[in-house]
């Protein structure tokens, strides 16, 4: 108790020097929490987008379907279970039919995935309603990435070649009805979307699909023969993995920031023990034991962490709150970083993160305060009183 009282007295007495340190430390609190909040917000957004554009809430895969092996696609069609038909009609379940196809942008040949999806589906954010299901032309959707890399514009006519279920080649032109803008590359790059019924006709597989995507409503009971259920966890395993990897790199950043803050404390501490030798000697002469002085200096150093937490709360809470409310605009360039980036990121701060940060800073501040303070216990008080460098 006495140690705390004296530590506070010393800190307040030191004035500006204390406040500078406290300010630096409070910045690292705020920046650590801010950066983590941003990454967290980013990750959550990426996952939410993934669910909205790609995975839905769950899927049924035709038993042969293997997304990493496109050569199995030819055998991965199966009749849509009849029990699901109502929900499909309502757009609550989106059957998707997938095949390989080639198209010829600017004279090259390129392999793509051709995907059929009902134009009335309500499961994914794909603007399938802009496809005109029963026009004489086949109307198609492509994503922004696909459009950009192949210079496709709305209204373009694109020639596609594919094999039907019997392995016979066929070709047709599709008209680009819309180009959609998504953060999710897995529904965009190297893909062309057309109405499901057209693709079923083209492949001669009426009433069949490769996979079924559901929205909020659960699967009704149905004859699941030939279908394998994939829950959300399985479907988002990959992005969860990426998020984990990112949290590792953010932990590294976290540590670097913390290290900088701790360096500031350590430095002050080393300097102040050096500079305040005479004070230390005097405290001993006045009746403190050397270990009491070590304790006092340690608490003094660690107290920077406490004061910084208070200061950080004063200016950090309004700042962080406004950031999470209004979002942080992201520069377009970040899009090329691989993982999808939204235009605005809304940081998410977890109580856990905040508590862990504070506790961690306090513990490390105590340690880096203690390490240099230990020297005091080896000081010779008679030399210290005279302020001799030892």
């Amino acid at each position, binding site marked *: 108790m*006495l140690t705390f009282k004296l530590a506070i007295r010393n800190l307040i007495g*030191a004035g500006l020097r204390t406040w500078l340190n406290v300010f630096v430390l409070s910045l690292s609190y705020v920046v650590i929490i801010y950066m983590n909040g941003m990454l967290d917000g980013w990750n959550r957004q990426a996952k939410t987008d993934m669910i909205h554009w790609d995975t839905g809430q769950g899927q049924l895969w035709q038993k042969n379907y293997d997304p990493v092996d496109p050569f199995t696609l030819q055998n991965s069609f199966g009749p849509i279970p009849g029990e699901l038909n109502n929900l499909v009609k309502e757009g609550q379940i989106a059957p998707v039919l997938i095949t390989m196809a080639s198209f010829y942008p600017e004279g090259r040949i390129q392999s793509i995935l051709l995907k059929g999806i009902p134009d009335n589906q309500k499961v994914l954010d794909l603007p399938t309603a802009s496809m005109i299901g029963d026009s004489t032309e086949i109307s198609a959707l492509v994503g922004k990435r696909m459009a950009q890399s192949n210079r496709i514009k709305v209204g373009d006519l694109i020639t596609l070649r594919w094999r039907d279920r019997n392995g016979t080649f066929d070709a047709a032109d599709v008209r680009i009805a819309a180009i959609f803008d998504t953060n999710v590359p897995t529904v965009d790059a190297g893909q062309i979307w057309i109405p499901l019924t057209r693709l079923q006709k083209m492949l001669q597989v009426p009433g069949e699909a490769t996979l079924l995507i559901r929205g909020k409503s659960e699967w009704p009971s149905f004859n699941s023969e030939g279908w394998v259920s994939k829950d959300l966890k399985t479907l988002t395993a990959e992005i969860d993995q990426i998020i984990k990897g990112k949290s590792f790199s953010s932990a590294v950043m976290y540590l670097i920031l913390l290290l900088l803050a701790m360096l500031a404390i350590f430095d002050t501490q080393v300097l102040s023990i050096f500079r305040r030798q005479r*004070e230390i*000697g005097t405290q*001993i*002469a*006045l*009746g*403190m034991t050397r270990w009491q002085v070590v304790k006092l200096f340690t608490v003094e150093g660690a107290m920077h962490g406490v004061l910084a937490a208070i200061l950080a709360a004063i200016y950090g809470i309004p700042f962080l709150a406004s950031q999470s409310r209004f979002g942080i605009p992201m520069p377009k360039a970040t899009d090329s970083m691989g993982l999808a980036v939204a235009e605005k990121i809304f940081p998410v701060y977890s109580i856990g993160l905040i508590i862990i940060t504070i506790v961690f800073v306090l513990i490390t501040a105590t340690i880096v305060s203690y390490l240099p303070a230990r020297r005091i216990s080896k000081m010779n008080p008679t030399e210290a*009183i005279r302020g001799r460098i030892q």
Partner: protein
Amino acid sequence: MESNKTVIEIRNLVKTFPMGNREFTALNGINLTFTGGEFSGLVGPSGSGKTTLLNIIGTLDSPTEGEALVMRHSVGKLSQKKAAHLRNLKIGFIFQTFNLLPVYSALENVEFPLLLQKMNAASRKKAVMDALDWVGLADKVRSRPAQMSGGECQRVAIARAIVKKPEIVLADEPTANLDAENSHHILQTMVKLNKELGTTFLFATHDEKVIGYLRRIIKLYDGKVSSDEIVTVK
């Protein structure tokens, strides 16, 4: 504090410091006894061992040989904790360089030893104000050392030394950084404290002004006592 009681007893004290690979003898066979209420001084040229002896009496250093008993405690055989306790309760220090705690006000400096004693706030406050009154600085309670003159700083240091009503005050060249007027002022203050509180004062000095106030003069030369005289009334 009763007088005529032995407060410090030094027997065959030797203090050596390592110097390179040899030993340097700073104190060589000192025998001294101080009774309560004395106003005495170690006088000698620089390097004669005055500070070293004062530090040992103040339990900040320990004898190499022989014994130093302070309030019947043998210096050097006390644990760190016991020695600190003894300094805190019974021994007041006054230094040549004042050694006030720089970020504390006059009041906080004087309060410091009482905080260590865990004295309650009310009696602490009273003791501090009394001590500052004694040295004539009741109006400077809020001042920091940097805002005070050397004389004022030394008076705060005296207040800090006597606030706990110690048995012994050890003053190492207390006037070395003061002008004549301030020197006389603080010396008169100390004489008054000595008379009214019965506190034992032990100086280390080579300042003629200080010597003029001493009631017992112990001359040190090369780590040995060369003379020890009681000053009879002037």
